[in-house]
């Protein structure tokens, strides 16, 4: 088993692609553990909490936040292989390289306001549970709003990928996944009322602005990880249409 | 040259428009002395009419009539699913309120 693994590391012609794919999978596992289990930032805390409530929320999740986000600080770099792999998928298409580069830059840029800022600010909040509650609430708002409220980069990024897939002639991805990108892009629009409401279904933890969007994003992520895997299996390092999935690999 | 098709579309459009106009009548009869009141009958019939319209749009406008059986079954299943979800949401909500 392990000797086979080492053989693949040394000789598999697709090892670079597989590295990027596994980095993606591992990253999302860390992300789930850190956000959903350790820090309890997903599902998000209640935006209707008053200053005292926000301070108590920090106190209650003290170690979860500190440990969970320490893990994120360690592994966030793994988003780079993911974005690189997706950019590569666009390089494999029959379209201008501008698409791949646009996606690479958009998504590399998105990680700082869209995720790391939340991790940093919540870490600062948890660091001093005895800070004035008003300040704790300020940190609380900054963290969650920067996280759910960073929309444009993901919106335009998804649209770039969608357009690339729809006009591609090399069959790198099925067209329906192109349309699924549109669904994902629309969730970034749906989340925008989170900047307005403190409670209800459109708040940042609301049924529509968070739960439904999260389900769509979860489906989207699951689908693209699967499709990227199939793309790597189908890859022939040519420039023409990508061959079909080989029989034994499909089963 | 394509008469068989063309004739169906105006009929479909008229039927859909009539069903839309029926809402005016439905809304009018539901008012009690000009005051809006909650009415399960209106709710259920409004959703029902909408779902029937959706199914007609699927079958006629979107040409599911001529599509493979799988797509026919899928769209029908979707209409049914919507019916279950919408009625379910309404009645569960009523029970809980």
């Amino acid at each position, binding site marked *: 088993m392990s000797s086979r693994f080492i053989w693949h590391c040394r000789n598999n*012609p*697709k*090892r*670079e*692609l597989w*590295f*990027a794919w596994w980095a993606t999978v591992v990253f999302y596992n860390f992300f789930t553990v850190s956000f959903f289990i350790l820090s309890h930032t997903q599902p998000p805390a209640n935006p209707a909490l008053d200053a005292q409530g926000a301070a108590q929320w920090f106190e209650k999740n003290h170690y979860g*936040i*500190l*440990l969970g*986000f*320490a*893990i*994120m*600080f*360690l*592994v*966030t*770099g*793994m*988003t*780079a*292989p993911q*974005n*690189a*792999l997706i*950019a*590569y998928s666009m*390089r494999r298409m029959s379209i201008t390289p501008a698409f*791949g580069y646009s996606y*690479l830059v958009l*998504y*590399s*840029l998105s*990680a*700082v306001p869209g995720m*790391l*800022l939340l*991790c*940093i*600010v919540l*870490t*600062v909040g*948890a*660091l*001093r549970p005895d*800070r*004035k509650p008003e*300040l704790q609430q*300020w*940190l609380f708002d900054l963290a969650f709003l920067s996280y759910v409220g960073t929309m444009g980069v993901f919106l335009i990024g998804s649209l770039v990928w969608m357009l690339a897939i729809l006009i591609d002639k090399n069959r790198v991805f099925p067209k329906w996944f192109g349309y699924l990108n549109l669904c994902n892009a629309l969730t970034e629009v749906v989340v925008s009322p989170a900047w307005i409401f403190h409670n209800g279904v459109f708040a940042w933890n609301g049924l529509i602005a968070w739960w439904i969007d999260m389900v769509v994003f979860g489906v989207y992520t699951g689908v693209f990880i699967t499709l990227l895997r199939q793309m790597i299996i189908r890859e022939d*390092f040519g420039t023409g249409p990508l061959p079909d999935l080989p029989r034994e690999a499909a089963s | 040259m394509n008469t068989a098709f063309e004739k169906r579309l105006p009929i479909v459009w008229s039927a859909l428009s009539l069903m839309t106009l029926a809402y005016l009548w439905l809304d009018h009869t539901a008012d009690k002395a000009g005051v809006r009141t909650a009415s399960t009958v209106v709710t259920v019939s409004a959703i029902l009419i909408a779902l029937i319209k959706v199914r007609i749009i699927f079958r006629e406008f979107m040409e599911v009539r001529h599509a493979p059986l799988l797509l026919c079954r899928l769209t029908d299943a979707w209409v049914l699913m919507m019916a279950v979800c919408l009625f379910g949401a309404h009645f569960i909500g009523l029970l809980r309120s």
Partner: protein
Amino acid sequence: MRRTDGELILFWTLPATGLIWIAAFFLFPGFVHPMSPTMSAAAVAAFYRENTGRIRVSMILFNWFCVCLIPVLMLLVVQMRKMAHRTPIFSYCMVACAAGGPAIFLLANLFWLLAAFRPERAPELTQMYNDLAWVTFTIQVPYLIMQSVLLALAIYCDRQARPVFKPWVAHFNLLVAAALAPAAFTGLALGGPMAWDGLLPFWVKNITIAIWIVVMGVVIAQTIRRQRVESEVAA
């Protein structure tokens, strides 16, 4: 024909950047004896009141020049493109990482400047900005770790008769990644070797970054020189 004009100019920006960084580092009064996370709000506020000028100048310097590492990282990307890889994945990853480190540092830089902007404000507020700045500064490692790991992997995958970089560069980069890792956990302790002024997150991390820049600078210089000699011989 490989186009190399300007390569050396970009390379020689590195020592200049290094000088400016060292100057700014020593100019900032909170670095030489790193500020302790256990300082009281009043002490932090007093620190910003007393050292306002030096903080502002040093941080404005950093604001101007902290992104200067990017051209050098791009020289590394160019070298990665010369490696015997099947795909451009590694160089894409490197590009994706390159902006991350400076962007996080810029954020920390802004918080420091904000803290010094109105030093007479309520001490709790200044302390919060100070916390934000130090935490951001200390945990800026994710993209640096990834860069080193990527570089190592890229070198290991570079299987040709005369690889672009020697294997020891890869081992060195893995070591760097390991040395940077503890800084990610700085939030867990306000005192001791894991605090943001402690041994691992401050001294080990920052010295490692400095060593990495020096070593990679030398490696890039040697590689570029070798490539220039080879292309002259060929011409």
